[in-house]
């Protein structure tokens, strides 16, 4: 069976995106997930571990943009795995720059697994976070 996704996309780099972490967006997010930890309401709170999904969808192209670039129909995909690895902390006020790339495309049991890695640098240009998203194409 032929691959559903073009191998030639491995290594493809999406346009970089930038976003400032805002207090209001953080509050909207913590309310949406029902997390009332007072630590998120201090002066320069650290973000919850999965908050960076906001970067990808509000500043980046989100899943839809990535799939469009890959020529994949959104109705045929599943979100298989998700990983965040922090190399530092991100707080309200920080400005992140995200760079996503197609890390690998592999075929297993008739399904195609696409790994998209996004590296986030802060305003000091330190690498703060590496995100790995696994998308499964049925």
């Amino acid at each position, binding site marked *: 069976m032929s691959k559903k996704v073009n191998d030639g996309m491995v290594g493809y780099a999406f346009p970089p995106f930038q976003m400032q972490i805002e207090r209001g967006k953080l509050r909207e997010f913590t*309310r*949406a997930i029902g997390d009332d930890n007072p*630590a998120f309401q201090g002066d320069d709170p650290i973000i919850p571990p*999965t908050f960076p999904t906001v970067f990808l969808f509000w500043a980046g192209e*989100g899943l839809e943009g990535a799939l469009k670039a890959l020529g994949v129909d959104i109705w045929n995909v599943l979100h*298989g*795995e998700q990983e965040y690895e922090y190399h530092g902390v991100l707080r309200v006020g920080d400005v992140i720059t995200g760079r996503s790339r197609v890390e690998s495309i592999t075929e297993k049991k008739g399904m195609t697994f696409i790994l998209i890695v996004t590296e986030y640098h802060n305003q000091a240009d330190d690498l703060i976070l590496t995100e*790995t998203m696994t998308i499964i194409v049925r």
Partner: protein
Amino acid sequence: MIYYEDVDVGDDLPQLVKGPLTEQDLVRYSGASGDFNPIHTVPKVAHLVGLDGVIAHGMLIMAYAGQLLTDWAGVGSVKRIKVRFSGMTKPTETLVCRGQVTGTSIEDGQGMVSGKLTVKGQADDSLKLKGDFTLILPLRHNNL
């Protein structure tokens, strides 16, 4: 506050129960996250793709797993969290998040605690996601 020295392999994290989930929660999370895929909010679209109603965002369920960790070890403690999504979650479900410590070590003067976690439906024990994590905990006695 939890210190590295207080943690042993095999320790269970305090359980976190979330829900019952409502359609409103999914609308809120769509707006907050920016993931507006209509299978999470528009029943008509969910039916078109063969579901019997809207389903929760996987990332919402992962956020609960994140809260399991930060409730226990503090905001900013999470070095790494990785999950594999296993099953769909529907409104009305109540979820139980559990975690367990599988390893401890001191690296570069930092207390590292690793472990595994699950999120399951309370009613039928159905697995929503499972994963693993690494936390950085403060040392009570920093002799460096």
